[in-house]
Structures are given as C-alpha cells and as structure tokens.
C-alpha cells in the first residue's frame, strides 16, 4: 500500500487556477522533474450533443481542427508541433472532445498559440475540400476500427441496447455512414461557432513551467477571443436505475469464436456508486487473479484465457455501463459460457468478496491511477476532466480515495443492486457456419 502521505490524496502536485474575462478556465500544475510540458484543452462538447441526423459530427469536427486555421496552413499544425519535438493528438467521446500536445517545455508558447488560433480562427479556414477529404478519412477509420475487425462493432451495438432512443448515449461517437455522407459545410461552421468558445473550454498546462507564465501566455493568446452567450446544453441524460427488461442481440459474422458481452447500466462516473462499480468490475474481471479468470478460464476451462474480463466505461452524464466479456474455448457451447458468466456474477452476491480479493483490486486500481498520472499528458487530461465535469480540478485528488474507501459490503450491495437479470444486456457473436477445410 502507498505510504499514508500519498494515500491521502490522489493528486500530490500543486494545482493553480484562473479564469480569463472571456470565461476560459486555466489550470496549471507545475512539475519540474523533466523538461516537458503538456497543453490540453477540454471542450465540453461530445457526441451526446448531436441531434438526430448528425451522428458522428463532433468527431468529424475534431479531424477538421487539424486541417488549418486562420494563421496556420493545411498540415502546418502537425509540422510545427513535431518540428519542435512535440507529439500531439485529440479524441472525441460521448461526453467531450480533447486536444493535447506534449512538448519540450521551451516550446510551450507555440502550443498555446496553435490552440488559440484554432479556437478563435477555424471557420475562415474551413473549406469544402477539407471537409470532403476528412469525411473520407473518418469513413475509412470507421471501416478499419469497427467494421473490418472481428467483434469491432460491439460498443456500437451495446449502446442502443443500454440507452433508449433519444438518450444522448443511444448512438456511438463514430456516427453512421448515412449521417457522415450528409454532413455539409454550413453545419460544421455552425458547430464551431456554437461550441468552440473560451467559455466552453478548460485549458490545462502541466509540467516544466509555472502558473504565472501560463496565465500570462493564456491572456496573451486567448484573451482576445470573445465569449459566446447561450451555448445550448446537451439533452438531459438522467435515467432512474438500470433497464427494467433484459435486452438481447445475437450477431452471426466473421468471428473466430463465439463471444459474449454482458452489460449493465450503473451510476455516473464521479459518484460513490460508480466507485463501488469500478471496484466490483476489477474484482470480477481484472487480470489472472480475478474471479472470472479463476473460475472460467482456469477452473472450468470454458473461456479463452486471453479474452476474458470486466471493465467500466467512465461516462459522467448518465449511468455509465460495466461490460463483462468472455470468448468460448474450442468445443465449448456458447450457452455453457453464458451460464458460467451468470454464475460468476451471481457469486458476487452469494459468496461475498474476500478481503484478499478486495485488497488486490484496490492495489491494481492504485497502480493504474498512478500510471495514468505518470506522464504530464495523463495529469493534464485528468485535471481537465475534473475541471470540466465537476467544476474543480482539485477534485481529481478524491478518486483514488473513493476507490480505497469501498468496502466488501459495498461491493456485495453493488452486485446485488446492479447485476440483476432483468437489467442485463446480452450481446452474443457467433461464427458463420463455414465449410470444414483440411
């Protein structure tokens, strides 16, 4: 276990915050250990904001943010960051969109300049040609990551089973091919105008710098960007509890072996209920010490050892899902595997977790927490998340303590409350019948 001084907070580095007149929140966490710095922007817009007919737009928009802005030509953004020794990327999920660069710290100012230029000056640089080009890139990404990979579309299929039509999490971030094809330039111009505003973003800088420098540079580059009034909120995601009737889907396709995904809605990320669900998922399905592995891969030997596990997806604006998955071993009937999974889930209520199981799960979560914070990039993204979703970056320090406070009784209660048969989503993949070949 970590020493008490460390365990009392999950974020033992300084955090300083400021807010510019235009509403941009600036978070700085200084760490002089290595001469690198990360610049991270969280925009409070994700696929949950997308109306019907515009699925995939938030993510396609993220691509457009790399294609030039008022003072930056196409491909120049990448060149300037890499050409100063940095690395960069961006991601979109249901909740938010983030952009980040890790740079040698002497090039901090360049990263801020680039981010300010695309926050304030993207629309004039946006052309039909760029949109068409990136639409094709995203369609290829959809094929490559979801359609052309065995089981690749599981997440795309689970979401509509877990969340009702019209719910902000009902559709996946990648969107539908139909909607992507229909995307027009004016919609994207409007999207930027609506959501990419200083008062809808958190700028976080972590690493080899200090708060005074960052606040000064933030004012210099972002200070003149106007705030935007009336940014519309996403549709309400509130749901009372889990499903009231089980949902099931079976897919026959080009997969090497039958696989099952079980899923339940739990609680929103950041709540004590979700902390318990996180510990529960870890006990159940993290690594070879977990119950699923010990009972189904090792004990009964009905599941493939490399493809069994359980995990939560950390969504903050509605009850987040826990997903349990296993793949049959050669010669095992998929019904037997489903029954086995059901028994292991039930066992969490009938045979309460032991202190040893709980300690292992907490130790694993502790390691994963610190690994997440071992880079300036991981720290910046964490602070941006807590500032955006909970209004205070310092609340990042509470998560580890929240996990460590979960008791065996909490885990049993969470299993009894969450893993009920009537609230279960079951997604099964079956291999196509193929001719036997020698």
């Amino acid at each position: 276990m970590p020493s008490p001084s460390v365990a009392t907070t999950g974020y033992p580095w300084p955090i300083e915050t400021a807010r510019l007149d235009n509403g941009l929140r600036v978070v700085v966490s200084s760490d002089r250990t290595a001469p690198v710095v990360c610049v991270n922007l969280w925009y409070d817009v994700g696929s949950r904001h997308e109306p019907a007919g515009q699925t995939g737009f938030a993510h396609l928009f993220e691509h457009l943010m790399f294609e030039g802005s008022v003072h930056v030509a196409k491909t120049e953004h990448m060149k300037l960051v890499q050409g100063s020794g940095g690395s960069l990327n961006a991601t979109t999920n249901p909740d938010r969109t983030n952009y980040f660069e890790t740079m040698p710290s002497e090039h901090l100012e360049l990263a801020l300049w680039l981010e300010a230029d695309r926050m304030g000056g993207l629309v004039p640089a946006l052309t039909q040609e760029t949109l068409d080009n990136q639409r094709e890139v995203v369609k290829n990404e959809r094929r490559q990551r979801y359609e052309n990979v065995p089981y690749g579309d599981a997440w795309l299929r689970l979401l509509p089973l877990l969340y009702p039509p019209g719910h902000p999490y009902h559709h996946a971030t990648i969107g539908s091919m139909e909607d992507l094809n229909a995307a027009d330039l004016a919609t994207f111009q409007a999207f930027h105008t609506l959501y990419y505003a200083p008062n809808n973003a958190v700028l976080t800088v972590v690493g080899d710098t200090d708060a005074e420098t960052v606040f000064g540079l933030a004012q210099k580059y972002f200070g003149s960007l106007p705030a935007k009034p009336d940014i519309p909120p996403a549709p309400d995601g509130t749901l009372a509890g889990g499903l009231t009737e089980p949902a099931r889907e079976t897919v026959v396709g080009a997969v090497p072996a039958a696989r099952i995904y079980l899923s339940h809605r739990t609680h929103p990320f950041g709540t004590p209920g979700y902390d318990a669900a996180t510990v529960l998922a870890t006990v159940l399905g993290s690594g070879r010490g977990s119950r699923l592995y010990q009972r189904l891969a090792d004990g009964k030997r009905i599941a493939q050892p490399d493809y069994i596990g359980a995990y939560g997806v950390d969504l903050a604006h509605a009850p987040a899902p826990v997903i349990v998955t296993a793949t049959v071993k050669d010669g095992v009937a998929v019904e037997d595997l489903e029954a086995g999974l059901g028994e292991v889930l039930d066992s969490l209520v009938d045979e309460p977790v032991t202190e040893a199981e709980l300690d292992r799960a907490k130790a694993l979560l502790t390691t994963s927490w610190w690994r997440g914070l071992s880079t300036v990039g991981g720290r910046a993204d964490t602070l941006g998340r807590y500032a955006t979703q909970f209004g205070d970056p310092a609340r990042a320090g509470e998560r580890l303590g929240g996990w460590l406070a979960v008791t065996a009784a909490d885990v049993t209660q969470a299993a009894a409350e969450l893993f009920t048969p009537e609230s279960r989503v079951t997604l099964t993949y079956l291999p196509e019948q193929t001719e036997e070949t020698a």
Partner: protein
Amino acid sequence: MRELPALGPNRKLKLPKQAEQTLDNGLTVIAIRRSAVPLVELRLRVPFGRAPLARAMLLSQTLFSGTSTMSTTDIAAGLQTVGGALDAGHDPDRLLISGNALVTGLDRMLEILAGVLTDATYPTDEVATEREVLVDHLQVAQQQPAHLVRVALLKRMYGRHPYAVQTPEPGQVKGVRPGQLRALHADRVRPDGATLVIVGDLPPERAIEAAAKALDGWTGLARDAVVPPVPPLETGPLVLVDRPGSVQSSLRIALPGLPRQHPDHAALQLANLVFGGYFSSRWTENIREDKGYTYGPHSGIEHSVAGSALIASAEVATEVTGPALLETRYELGRLASLPVEAEELEQARRYALGSLQLGISTQAGLATHAAEYAGYGLRLDYLAEHAAKLAAATREDVFTAAQQYLAPARAVTVVLGDAAAVEGQLAALTEVQRA
C-alpha cells in the same frame, strides 16, 4: 499578437540519478531514480541469441505459470496484491521480462520474480493451455498481411542468418514438451550477462540492495548467446508475394542501417526523418497528403544486436501499387542526390531532440530505454552523446549519409498483394520475381 512565437533552441538533455552494480552471480543491476509517481518499473534482459525459436517463444509465454510452491494464479494474485504484473517477451536477441508495481511492493515483486527464475516448473496442463493460445495467435497472424510481408522481408534480407526466421510455425509449437522448456530454462535463463533495470520512486542504492538480496540465489553460467553479424543486403529483383484478392498491397523496402555507436548514425537518423520517419516527412506529404495512396507510411531504423537496417513500410491501395513504388523511389533518390533544405533539417532535428526528451520523461520510458541500450553495452549517458551529435549534424553530413544509405540502388524491396493486379504495374518499374 497573432504571430508565430519564435522557436528557441532545444534545451540540453538532463539525465536522472542512477547507480549500477554487477552482483556476484554476474547479473548487472542498473537503478534509476524517477520520483514522478509512487511506482516502480522493472526490466530484466536475458541474452537469448540462437535459442530454438518455438521453445523460446513458448517459454516466454509459460515462464509465469508455476513454481514448486506457487500456481499460475498464486503468482498472478501475489503480484496483484502489490498492484503489479510481470510479463515476458522474446526476440532473436533476448528474453525480456517487464513489469511494474507500487513502489512499496518492489521487494515482493522481486521475491516472486526470483521464485520464477530459480524454480519455474512449466506444469504440463499450463503448458498445454498456453501452447494452444500461442498456436491460435500464430494461426491468426498467418491471415494478416503485415505478418506475412514481414516474414517474406526477413527471409529476403537475412537468407541463412538466424534473424531470417523470427516466428515459429504452429506445427513446431505444437511439438514442444514441458521438459524441453525446463531444459531451455536451465540452459539459458541465467544471471550471467543479464541486466536488471529498476526505475522508480526510491534511492538507486536501495533498489540495488533489494535486487541483490532477492536474486542472490539465482546462479549459473549462461550458454554463449552471440549471434553472428548479419550479412550485407544483397540487391536483386523485387520480390512479389501473392495474396489473391488483397485490396491493399504491403510495400516494404529495406536499406542498410547503422548501429547506434556508429559516427554517422545521427546523420542517418535525421536523413530518415526527412524521408519518412515522422508525419511531417517528404514521403508522408507525397503519398498520403498529396496523392492519398495510403493511410500512413513510415520508415525507421531497426536495431538488433547483430546489425541494423532501415525499413520503410506502407499499405497502399492495390490499383496504385506501381505509382506508390515510383513515388517512394523518387523520394529516396531525391534525398540521395540533393542536399536537404536547411529548414526541413532543423525541423527534423528538433523533432529528434524533442523525442529523446519525451522518451525518457516517464519511469516506463526510462526503464525501456535503459534495458534496450544495456543490450548493446550502452548506458543512458549514450543519450547525451547522441543528442550532441544530432545537434551538430550539418546539411553535408546528412547528405553524405543519405547518399550512402538511402540510395534506391541499394534497396531491397518486397511487395505482398494481389499479384495478378499488381505484377504488371511493378514490372514496368523494376525486375519482379515471384516469391
């Protein structure tokens, strides 16, 4: 206000505090302090050159499946208790054990590691399970173009050298018995010549002490693991591997590389970056950003103990396989015939220097680099020397290196794709030989 801020010079590389000791059993322990988070990273590199391939690979998969006092789940659970995990991987030069844990769990992790190193039993049922898993993985790999083209390229580059075959056939793995794994372990998993790297939030002396205490029972001399130097690349016709119906062609080009210690290595690294070593390179600009032939080409220098090579890779659409090769040869030829522009050299130089900084900014990055370099007799201070060479390389140095090593006349080319569709396109450019 909106002008691009001026770029300052890259900062000098600063290396963390470290200590080193060779124990009585021949194991070298390198400990590095990095106090970012309360974790510890561990790498153990054991020379494994010329080990029988199928056995070595299965050994790496089953090393943690049991000792006389611990089952496979005892080992996993014991490591999890300190928030940790250990894994083993194999390549033609070494067995590499990697792991991490909470820093307070270092002693326990070392204790479990020592148990495995001195007393791994390779239980029959666990070996059977892992053998099945490995055979499944190999069979899946045989359907994947990236794997198939790699196999063909290594064979073409290395001929009869041990590096020519780096993955076993599924049939060879099926024949491996637990007794053979125990014999291989006794023969090769020895401290003599091995290097243990520990990076974390603790004083280096304390880490070395912990390692010495835990691993003093691990003894024995290792068998000679020296791999003979690789043969020089022999140019010849393009090798075409048929994969009927493939919608993309896998294009691979091998060129001579240079070992890290070579005086021209930094200049060649810069020339490679300008060619295809990062997103902002000429090759990416040409065949992705301008022509859209591919999602992302990449070239890099691959180091092995017995030799280095520069390998350029791109997955290109079937119908533009010939044009993609044409542009690739054009970009190589341009670098070998004309000096690079001053600005693109500066950009590549800053990228290379920045990547060094980022690469060693974490515990895991430091541990991986230190263990890798140790395999070549190098220490982290090599990074400072290399950074100085990157900073000093002139346009002339880079041009000289490019003339010598990036010349398309020296390239060995392998293409995997739908031969019926691409053979004519390729034959218009160069002599083609079916694999």
